[in-house]
């Protein structure tokens, strides 16, 4: 299957400004692809080339394998009707039409019969939680609700591709968060291909399966949130991700370490004590032959067992000592378990194998700054964050 959207060496020049420079990427079907950049970075221009609202100065766009560049206006409109919907920053609703009529707008353009149009608009409004508001006018709704109408209008058309242009940027933070949750929820159900434009890095990291970082018309890095956080491609990206709430992006797998002391389930207490002394740790994880986690032993218990002449480790393991987390657990959800556990957290896969451990110290280090970058002028960063 071809990529849902493929951009090849896109350039866009307005007068003497080069808005988009040599941009290439692919968006896979069912993926949320976030384009992240400050105002003036060219991200909105880029988005408008993906549905042909703007014609690239050079380069090519493919949608579902169909080349957009060079299509006649009529054919381009057909592609938009059949394949691509769009959600706008300031909602772009028709003020003189009811919520239902607005939601049905895309279908009206496609000349879907009235009854079917209404039914599908109703359904889309229900999906976004606006049932009961069909006969209101957009002006009677709050910002968040208006954008839900915008989203319903895009969903009602049933296109596979959704372009979202700073869709939540005009909303206040609480509502924005709610809308992000709703989008993720809908996406889990509908699996659309979404290209989402934002200047808010936290939003990008929350929503994006992959993120393209744009600066001055160029894409400087494409990767998952974690890749960008852990390996910023350059100083600019590093400075940018500085402020992000990493606890909501990084997962257990990203911050875990190789366990220092691992014992085989058949090991004796003497051996356990020796290993712990050698490695200078207060506890050791016990695994079976296929690396399945059996439990954890602590130095006091082992020392006492040695004194008492016991031999098996099995009775020394207190099931309450070991706290396991999954590799994809977000760091923010590790804090409480880590605080309550006397030993490092064990990162365990679904089939029970020990992948790594997270000592409290490395958790704190990950939250602070995993890598070293130069001082950033805090004022400069906040000044740049003003939305367009």
């Amino acid at each position: 299957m071809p990529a849902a959207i493929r951009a090849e060496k896109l350039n866009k020049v307005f007068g003497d400004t080069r808005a988009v420079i040599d941009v290439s990427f692919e968006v896979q079907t069912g993926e949320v692809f976030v384009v992240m950049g400050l105002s003036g970075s060219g991200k909105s221009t880029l988005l408008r080339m993906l549905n042909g609202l703007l014609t690239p100065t050079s380069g090519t766009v493919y949608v579902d394998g169909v080349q957009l560049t060079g299509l006649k206006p009529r054919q381009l409109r057909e592609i938009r009707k059949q394949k691509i919907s769009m959600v706008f920053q300031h909602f772009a609703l028709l003020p003189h039409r009811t919520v239902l009529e607005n939601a049905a707008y895309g279908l009206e353009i496609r000349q879907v019969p009235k009854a079917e149009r209404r039914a599908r608009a109703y359904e889309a409004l229900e999906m976004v939680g606006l049932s009961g508001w069909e006969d209101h006018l957009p002006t009677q709704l709050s910002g968040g609700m208006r954008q839900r109408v915008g989203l319903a209008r895009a969903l009602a058309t049933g296109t596979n591709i959704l372009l979202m242009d700073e869709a939540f940027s005009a909303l206040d933070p609480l509502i924005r968060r709610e809308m992000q949750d709703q989008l993720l929820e809908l996406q889990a159900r509908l699996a659309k291909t979404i290209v989402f434009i934002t200047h808010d890095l936290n939003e990008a990291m929350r929503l994006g399966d992959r993120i393209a970082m744009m600066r001055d018309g160029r894409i400087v890095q494409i990767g998952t949130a974690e890749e960008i956080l852990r390996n910023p491609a350059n100083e600019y990206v590093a400075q940018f991700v500085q402020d992000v709430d990493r606890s909501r992006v990084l997962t257990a797998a990203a911050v875990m370490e190789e366990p220092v002391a691992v014992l085989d389930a058949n090991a004796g207490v003497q051996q356990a004590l020796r290993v712990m002394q050698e490695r200078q740790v207060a506890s050791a994880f016990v695994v079976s032959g296929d690396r399945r986690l059996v439990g954890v032993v602590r130095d006091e218990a082992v020392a006492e067992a040695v004194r008492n002449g016991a031999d098996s480790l099995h009775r020394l393991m207190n099931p309450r000592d070991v706290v396991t987390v999954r590799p994809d657990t977000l760091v923010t959800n590790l804090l409480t378990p880590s605080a309550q556990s006397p030993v490092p957290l064990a990162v365990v896969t679904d089939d029970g194998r020990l992948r790594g451990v997270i000592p409290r110290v490395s958790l704190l280090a990950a939250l602070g700054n995993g890598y070293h970058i130069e001082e950033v002028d805090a004022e400069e960063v906040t000044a740049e964050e003003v939305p367009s």
Partner: protein
Amino acid sequence: MSLVAAAQTPRLHLGALFEAIVDWMTANLGFFLDAIGLVVDQAVSYLAAFFAAPVIVVLAVIFGGFALAWRGWKVGLAAFVGSLALGYAAAAAHVAPQHVLALTFGIIGLALRGWAFGSFAFLAFLLIDAMGLWDPAMQTLALVLVASACAVALAVPLGIAAARYDVVSRVLRPVMDFMQTMPAFVYLIPAIFLWGVGTAPGAVATLIFAMAPGVRLTELGIRQVDPEVVEAGEAFGASPAKVLFRIQLPLALPTLMAGINQVIMLALSMVVIAGLVGAGGLGDSVYSAISRVQIGPGFEAGLAVVILAIYLDRLTAALTSRSAVVRAQAAAAR
């Protein structure tokens, strides 16, 4: 020899050039101009004749049509039959046609604005009749409506073109300024040349003078439409025509209606001047009052013009406030 005399600017005969243009038009566009004159003439005289002695069936069709558009076919049919019955009853009872029409104007006012305006309109039109100015007033009303309709029919497409293409806008702006600021009387001279004395030159001069605000406010209204909303239409695959008729024009409607209102008001001020070239109506009455220095008749004719102006102005304003966009704004304010 003094310096002043030596430095005299050569006399440029721009007027002669213009005359040549008008001569050329008379010689070469005769058929076309005659056709325009004929159509305008006929339209005005038919409308004036209708206002002087309304045909009951036509009135009933108009009422029925409005009611149909407003409340559906049942109400429409009831209005049609009702006005037909009332009309024939009035004719049988020998009610004067101007009374029927005054009542009609009152009912239109009532439907669009309410009781106060409806009663005002009824009484005001009775007053016109009572001053003995019914026929000239209706002649003027017909002239204003025809000239305004033509002006709007030309102005709206021009305004749309100006909003879409900057070049058109740049070309039209000085032309509109010129048309609006040129002393209105000046239009009458070539108009007489082209069409002779009568209704047609008056209507055409009125049309040219009144058109500018229609073009300007149409352009402004369309340019003021939120570009994101227009983009939304395009993004969902709407054709340029659909964007224009379903998004731009409806959203520009309040401004556009303000333009139409201006056109009508300017037309009304111009038709009085057009009385000079024999366009008839209240302009004639005013003109003859001036030439005979008669204070009374002059005042009465002036008052009739004022009544027409108020009526048309409030009516277009009421139409504007009934447009969907304005109602949506009002709903938001509640």
